[in-house]
């Protein structure tokens, strides 16, 4: 047990990759074994992650389960890992979604099965690594390595325009990350110039001081790389294509985890490294976020393709999350982090739902459905709950995050958060519209009359999602507690003491009152 605890992060990160390698030795005809092995490995990773979750001390603001072993010491590159509350939730989300994605692929993936599951597991290693890396070089390695399996997932097992989508996804992301790499090297050399030693440690990067103008440039490159990943308006157009063409499992992972990396990048890298620049960029980020909310919702409304609609709804949701993290208000940031989990669950579930329909009818067009409630009552109920979670109905998970983001960021950007509330209306417009046309109404297509309801395997991956959708809606406290310390660290890293809100400290500020009175 002690050995496991000391190397818990390493185990969680390497286990899926080891599994992927092990898969390569299984003869490719034994597809059953391949599926079960992949599922087992991801389940094992989930078990270890649970151990991590429960051993994590919410009261401790420092990086926990830290590992620091020399890798290329002459260059200051170390194998540094660690988790705080934010990373922890992201790791849990990844560990939770991967087995579900694997389970969802059992039927829909019929070609090159071995390579598919190996890619998925390799992808998991990359994602876990990104969330746990505390060394910028290591982070970059995972960040880029993750692209490759995702590229293949889209490009090999995707839809008709898969090559276009995969290429677009790849080039878009590369464009951002290459700029970021340049900025990383710049900071790395600047650190050497200031302190005389080479180091890629995140803490050292944060400790390197720059004049404001340099900070602005550096921060902008990081911000761009992460904005593409989020994706923020107007860097979002890779997302609908990638989602539409990706296989269900790819969409689930893409929406559930990969998009979170952009926001995570802001929380972990862009903002703590360049707090002053981040502060001057924050209003613009918030603005782009809110534009994303309105714009994403509107565009989602005009999509005839379910998957594309869900993809654009992601743009809206992620916009709200960015508004939350740009507000630098503890409640808003907590809400944003929770909303990252919520979005992973509900949008992941939505993609699974579209996948379930696609498996049966091989079309994603809304107009090809209608009246499904009759043939598939269980499916319709599940779909209903997931849809309501996505539009932020109180009592389900989406509301808690939305509430905290909106109420928290209202203290920093009253106008922007008030505008973001329009997302509440618009999300209902497009989601309910889609739900109505798919599930309600008369059965307009003969072939929809005999669609089978959810089978045991489908229940098996939808039920855990539903459980968390309801649990977080009713009792989010344990999750919020885990991230509290990390969020405070993030907020205080940015806020100069004098810009803190009067209300935050519970003190009475006469100046603010006067301004209000005038």
């Amino acid at each position, binding site marked *: 047990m002690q050995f496991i605890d000391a190397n818990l992060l390493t185990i969680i990160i390497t286990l899926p990759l080891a599994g992927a390698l092990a898969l390569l030795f299984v003869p490719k005809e034994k597809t059953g074994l391949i599926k079960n092995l992949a599922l087992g490995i991801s389940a094992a990773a989930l078990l270890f992650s649970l151990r991590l979750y429960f051993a994590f001390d919410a009261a401790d603001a420092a990086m926990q389960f830290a590992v620091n072993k020399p890798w290329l010491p002459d260059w200051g590159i170390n194998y540094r890992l660690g988790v705080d509350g934010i990373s922890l939730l992201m790791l849990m989300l990844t560990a939770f979604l991967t087995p579900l994605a694997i389970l969802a692929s059992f039927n829909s993936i019929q070609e090159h099965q071995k390579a598919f599951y190996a890619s998925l597991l390799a992808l998991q290693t990359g994602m876990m690594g990104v969330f746990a890396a505390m060394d910028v070089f290591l982070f970059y390695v995972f960040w880029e390595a993750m692209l490759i399996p995702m590229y293949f997932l889209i490009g090999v097992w995707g839809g008709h325009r898969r090559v276009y989508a995969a290429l677009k996804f790849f080039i878009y992301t590369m464009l951002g990350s290459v700029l970021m790499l340049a900025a990383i090297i710049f900071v790395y050399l600047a650190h050497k110039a200031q302190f005389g030693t080479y180091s890629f440690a995140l803490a050292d990067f944060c400790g390197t001081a720059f004049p404001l103008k340099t900070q602005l440039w550096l921060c902008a490159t990081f911000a761009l790389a992460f904005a593409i990943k989020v994706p923020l308006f107007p860097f979002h157009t890779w997302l609908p294509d990638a989602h539409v063409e990706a296989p269900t499992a790819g969409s689930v992972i893409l929406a559930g985890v990969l998009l979170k990396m952009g926001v995570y990048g802001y929380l972990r890298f862009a903002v703590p490294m360049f707090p002053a620049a981040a502060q001057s960029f924050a209003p613009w980020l918030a603005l782009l976020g809110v534009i994303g909310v309105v714009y994403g919702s509107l565009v989602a409304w005009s999509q005839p393709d379910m998957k594309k609609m869900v993809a654009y709804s992601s743009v809206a949701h992620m916009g709200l999350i960015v508004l939350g993290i740009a507000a630098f208000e503890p*409640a808003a940031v907590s809400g944003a982090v929770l909303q990252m989990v919520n979005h992973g669950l509900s949008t992941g579930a939505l993609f699974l739902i579209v996948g379930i329909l696609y498996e049966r009818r091989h079309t994603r067009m809304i107009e090809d459905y209608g009246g499904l409630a009759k043939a598939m009552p269980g499916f319709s109920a599940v779909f209903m709950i997931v849809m309501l979670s996505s539009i932020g109905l109180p009592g389900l998970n989406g509301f808690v995050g939305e*509430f905290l983001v909106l109420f928290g960021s209202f203290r920093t950007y009253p106008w922007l958060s*008030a505008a973001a509330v329009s997302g509440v209306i618009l999300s209902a417009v497009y989601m309910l519209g889609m739900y109505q046309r798919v599930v*309600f109404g008369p059965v307009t297509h003969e072939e929809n009359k005999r669609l089978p309801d959810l089978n045991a395997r489908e229940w098996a991956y939808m039920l855990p999602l539903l459980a968390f959708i309801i649990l977080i809606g009713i009792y989010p406290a344990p999750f919020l507690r885990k991230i509290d310390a990390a969020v405070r660290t993030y907020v205080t890293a940015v806020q100069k003491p004098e810009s803190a809100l009067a*209300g935050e400290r519970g003190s009475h500020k006469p100046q603010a009152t006067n301004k209000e009175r005038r």
Partner: protein
Amino acid sequence: MTGNFYPLLKWIILPPLAGFVLNGGIGKRFLGEKGGGWLGAAAILLAFIFSFLCFSDLLNLPAGHRLLRDTLFNWISAGSFSIDFALRFDPLSAVMALVVTGVSFLIHVYSIGYMRGDKGFNRYFSYLNLFVFFMLILVLADNPILMFVGWEGVGLCSYLLIGFWYEDEKNAAAGKKAFITNRVGDAGFLIGLMLLSYLLARQGVSGLDFETLALNINLLDGGTVLGFGAPTVIGLLLFFGATGKSAQFPLYIWLPDAMAGPTPVSALIHAATMVTAGVYMLARMSFLYALAPRALEVVLVTGVFTALLGAVIAALQSDIKKVLAYSTISQIGYMFMAAGTGAYAAGIFHLTTHAFFKALLFLAAGSVIHGMAGEQEMFRMGGLSKEMRFTFALTAVGWLAISGIPPLAGFYSKDLVLEHVYAHGVPVLWYAGLATAGLTAYYVTRLLALTFLGGKNSETHAHESPLLMTIPMAALAALALTGGWLGSKYLLAFLDPASARAEISPEAFRLTMISVITALAGVASGFFFAIPAISDALARRLSIAREVVYNKFYVDEIYAFAVIRPLKRLADKVCFGFLDAGLIDGLLVNGAARLTYRTGAVLRNLQTGNAQGYALTFTGGLILLLYWIM
């Protein structure tokens, strides 16, 4: 924390939740129709009993200190926000909880008869239980955020129940319309709460429970937002939410369509309980509105306008449920009138009596529709008084109650509201209120006459409804008969111990006489114009005006033309067509790709494939290099 810790409160909300889970989860397979229906009704009865127990304990407390609280757990806690899942039980919540559970129980029993044989029977009862659960959360919540859970939750149940017979596209669309219209209001409500929480946080107040808000609301006094008083702006935003939920102008358009749901649902959700949530919310936030007289003016004017508008439209509808729907809109207008004059107790009083007689009327309409095998068109009914004696008698009670004939329930509460409006001092509003009262009496009489009196207009042989349906109606009729008198005697003092009823206006007797005369005039004209020859002549004379009113002043069409179509066009053409597919993805992203590709296409011409050509270039380069070096 003031108030007494009282763990019994949670037991009010738990039975409906359990009913929902059981009926929704295993109902169809294990409970069947009989078990599911009675389980649903029993759950509500249990909630009613618990409410009553809490109520009796509340009565034992001294008048000024009637408050019970129950904190279940800390719900959301982050940054400076800490929201408890906490319930409160004070006179206001107590009245609402009793009305909600009491009327719901009767309607549940009625539904067992009404929904017999429907294949979604268990689904129906699970939704209905879920609705009661959310409604109880709404009225028992100890903070506006938890209240919002109930607020949106009842909206969801309304959506589900309106579209209950989802196979008809129209029903599903009506449900969607209700939900989205409500959400428009909810957005205003949310912004109001955000503003409230923000302004209080600036003053160092981070608690959001009603007690803390009421204690600290004075900190907002004098503060301004965009040049208006902060309480006024917040009050208006919250009221905007109320116009959505309570179907007031300008967001009332969803309620008439909501009649697509089963009739007991219309009785419960769209007459007795959910649609009155806005009035409850105003009463709950009365401490805020005390600082915002201008917001109250808006509430008052909106109430008066909606009441009149609803009554005018109701007077010309031919669908029995549509008449009642517009009547509901109009009656809720009365409640807002009362709230707008600051007489919240009167508003809640009218809410209570309205719950009795409007639920009764809806159930009676349901009974008629049930008896006529689904017919809702009044002109195809007529003469039903012989075939459905019992229903007719009960409808008559509802008819007299809503018309404001003493000593039935509607008389007391409506009269009280009108007295407050009169005392408020703007005569126009009072006249409008009075006209509404006359119109109300007119359209209900018309409904009664067209449905039950005169000759038969259809072949259908109507049958009286089973006892399961008539007994709940009888119970409601008893309440509609006595509720007004009881209410004016006990309810008002219970809700608002400080103010007694007598001292409102010295001219109370004169006012009462006027409104009774108006009501009688309305009834008389209702009978008069129901005579086919007269109504036909009038219809020809006023055909254009009639057309406009019958089509609800084309408000739906105006919204579609002015809001929805432009927005959809913005989404389709500008956002997706021009910006997304055209500018960003087409020109910039794929444009960059195309540019790269085209540059390559030009440059590839240099690659002739002629090896000697390459060699020549190479030699030339070499010579140039040598020249440059030496």
